């Protein structure tokens, strides 16, 4: 069982780092950039996406043997759309203030290839347990990305984090960060940082390999 534990752990972690849907696969960005101008919006959008992803992965892997191949995409989409509608109504009922900011973009979760892609690539081929773990991992990765993006934009753009002022009254907000260009630029620089990190790691690995090689 240890092996499967390890495997499950790997499955989970890969979504957060190695195959992070945002930073590595750069998927499903559209609604994300529009709404992540504050950390709380990032959390809300992230959770909404998580719910849809996990819910539909569960259902898809549950029903995978019943759905004929020819109509699987349509079925997936119907399942996803169902969950999205559920999220939409729930947010509207429970947190109308947040729904007002995200509202228009929530239905767009349907169109994110990230979610459909997970159904197609993973949930429809794996056990319920693995599908759930995979979905949770991806969702966590997505959530982390959204929250960090929202946090950066909120900190610079308003001097706050989750609405709490950080720098005192005299802070000069960087308005661009909450405007559309700020979304592009922030994500661009985050990816840049990711690339830089990966490159650095690769170079270190190479050097380590070279040293090992020279020993022989």
């Amino acid at each position, binding site marked *: 069982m240890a092996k499967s534990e390890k495997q499950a752990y790997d499955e989970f972690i890969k979504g957060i780092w190695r195959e992070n849907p945002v930073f590595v696969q750069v998927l499903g*960005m559209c609604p994300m950039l529009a709404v992540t101008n504050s950390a709380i919006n990032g959390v809300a959008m992230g959770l909404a996406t998580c719910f849809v992803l996990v819910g539909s992965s569960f259902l898809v892997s549950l029903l995978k043997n019943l759905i004929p191949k020819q109509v699987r995409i349509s079925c997936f989409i119907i399942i996803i759309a169902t969950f999205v509608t559920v999220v939409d109504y729930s947010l509207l009922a429970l947190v109308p203030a947040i729904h007002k900011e995200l509202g228009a973009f929530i*239905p767009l979760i349907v*169109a994110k290839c990230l979610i459909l892609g997970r159904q197609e690539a993973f949930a429809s081929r794996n056990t319920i347990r693995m599908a759930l773990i995979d979905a949770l991992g991806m969702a966590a990765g997505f959530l982390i990305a959204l929250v960090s993006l929202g946090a950066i934009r909120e900190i610079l753009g308003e001097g706050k984090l989750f609405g709490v002022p950080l720098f005192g009254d005299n802070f000069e907000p960087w308005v661009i960060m909450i405007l559309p260009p700020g979304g592009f630029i922030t994500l661009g620089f985050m990816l840049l940082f990711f690339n830089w990190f990966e490159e650095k790691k690769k170079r270190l690995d190479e050097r380590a390999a070279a040293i090992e090689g020279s020993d022989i």
Partner: protein
Amino acid sequence: MGDLGWIFISTLLINNFVLAYFLGLCPFLGVSSKLDTSFRLGLATTFVMVVTALCAWILNTYVLIYAPYLRLISFIVVIACVVQLIEMAIKKLSPALFRALGIFLPLITTNCAILGLAIFATNRGYGLWQGLVYALGAGAGFTLAIVLMAGLRDETEMSDVPTMVKGIAFNLIVSGILSMAFMGFAGLFSAS
């Protein structure tokens, strides 16, 4: 609110779907640096958008007032079916047009800008003509953005962009600059 001209200018320039709403980013960032392809993708998208606006209006007027909860599902299903039908129709009627636009049609169906258009037009309570103009503006805006981007990328393919930046990160930052430039249109025709 009903000024059609302003709706068009606004969606084309001020609230450009790509540069201000981040819709249709995948084709925008990923598809191509080939001008010709981008332009045709833009045209096809505009076309699908207009059809979508029409469908959305029909649904909103005749179906969804009775069953608002079916909005999302019905939009998706109807858009997918209609695009499929159009694709078949074009293939039959005009092979030339099909060669020009056809291969893009299935791709476009999954593009969030289309669904976004239907949802936004509904949220704004647009009527038929307003919705159609909105779709036209959004499609033209998408085309404008993607064609400009294709030009920029084509040009930079030959310069020595640092490897670390190359790829999506670079495209995003360039989009940021483009989006900044488009801010110049803010307030157009609403101030005077």
